[in-house]
């Protein structure tokens, strides 16, 4: 499964467009990380716990998108976009969407 945020794949021909596929996940971290993060908020700098959390969730969102694409018989997802929104304090929704296509 090819995942790319370009609209075309150089040197490859798109046989069929299969429409939009998407994947999303809402995650929150445990209290310990939250407390650590609030300390870090005092000194500034990277909040590793959050970085990891968001990275993992984004991967999960992409995987869900891939699964959806596979289910409708696509072998590539093009023009992928990401979007993040904080739903409540400490919880974030990670959303990935793209166009499922069949390429040669």
């Amino acid at each position, binding site marked *: 499964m090819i995942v*790319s945020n370009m609209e075309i794949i150089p040197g490859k021909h798109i046989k069929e467009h299969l429409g939009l596929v998407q994947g999303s996940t809402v995650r929150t971290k445990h209290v310990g990380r939250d407390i650590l*993060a609030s300390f870090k908020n005092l000194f500034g700098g990277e909040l590793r716990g959050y970085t990891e959390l*968001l990275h993992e969730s984004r991967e999960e969102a992409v995987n869900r998108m891939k699964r959806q694409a596979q289910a409708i018989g696509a072998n590539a997802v093009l023009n992928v976009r990401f979007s993040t929104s904080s739903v409540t304090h400490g919880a974030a929704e990670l959303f990935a969407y793209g166009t499922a296509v069949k390429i040669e």
Partner: protein
Amino acid sequence: MVDLIVLAILLALGYGFGRHFEKQHYKSIIRREAELRHITAIASRIPPAPQLADDPILVTGSVVISVDYFKRFLAALRSLVGGKVVSYESLLDRARREAILRMKEKARRLGANQIFNIKLETASISKNARGNIGSVEVLAYGTALKPLQQQER
């Protein structure tokens, strides 16, 4: 009185550590930017010249970064009179450059030397009760390409 002392201590801690971390971070950003200069990050949507390439791979880099207490205090003061909030400018600058660097590091691990269609996204992750921005997440993503002639060499 106690409140004032606590505030002064928090401000001093924030100022000291915040400055230290920021300096260190900038040093590491500049060093790694020089290291990764051979990987070109291009914002155009489609490669300029059609080229034979391996399958494209989506690469991402993200970072969540927080501003220190002292800078947050300054920003709150600044919002009284309006104008440029320098303390947040450097925060976002660091976050963007770090995210791009992480994306490039991933591309390097895959053996690619070009990244196309780079998009940057910024989201504020945690807001406290007063609505101040505590930390921002920056995500950089793009499509890494491995030119074929490069591989044969």
